């Protein structure tokens, strides 16, 4: 092993999640993953709802799901997950283009992603579900 490799091995590591204070861009990043996994797990639900909504008998059942408080909450959660993933994704695309990669800009855009996705959730969720 080279000297550098040995040095790397001896670096202190802290992987204790409870003691790590994640900065804002880190929070947006993990929420991007969490929202993606959430949407993936809900894919059968989304396809089933889409299929039902297009049939004569199913349309009313899907309307009942939308009007049910728990159904509304789940769908609102999904809309947030989609919009957060959408906004955070656009931020990552901009970072890929080397736009806003300095630390102050990256922090600011992370905050903007959280605010814009929550605002869009209120507007689009409100329009579609109420």
């Amino acid at each position, binding site marked *: 092993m080279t000297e550098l490799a040995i040095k790397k091995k001896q670096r202190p590591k802290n992987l204790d999640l409870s003691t790590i204070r994640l900065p804002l861009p880190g929070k947006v990043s993990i929420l991007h*993953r969490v929202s*993606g*996994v959430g*949407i*993936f797990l809900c*894919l*059968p639900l989304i*396809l089933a709802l*889409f*299929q039902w*909504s*297009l*049939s*004569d008998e199913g*349309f009313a059942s899907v309307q009942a799901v939308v009007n049910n408080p728990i159904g509304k909450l789940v769908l609102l959660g999904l809309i947030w997950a989609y919009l957060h993933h*959408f906004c955070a*994704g*656009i931020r990552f*695309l901009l970072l*890929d283009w080397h736009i806003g990669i300095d630390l102050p800009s990256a922090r600011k855009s992370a905050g903007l992603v959280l605010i814009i996705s929550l605002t869009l959730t209120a507007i*689009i969720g409100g*329009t*579609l579900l109420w």
Partner: protein
Amino acid sequence: MKRNVVGAHYGLTTWIAQRATAVLMAVYTVIFLVAVLAVQPGTVDAWRGIFANGFMKFVTFLFFLSLFYHAWIGIRDLWMDYIKPTGLRLSLHVLTIAVLIGYAGWASKILWSL
């Protein structure tokens, strides 16, 4: 380069596919929201009408395929990050692909049964 049987594709293809599918989905999202706002579907006929024409059918199917391809890349990254044993990771990769191909078949059936 040391290549792992369940490693990434060692190229730009997947990385670009993840971004290209994201852009396709973003464009479709706008088309869908505009269509819903324009039609205001309060009845099943109006709602079905949105997907009745060939263009909407095509772009909606394209959206679903982009979604499933995008999901494959994202979930594959997840397995690569958290699941270290090769056999288990390979099994999860196969399972993820199988499920997503099934969803693609389901989505085509929904759209072309209209």
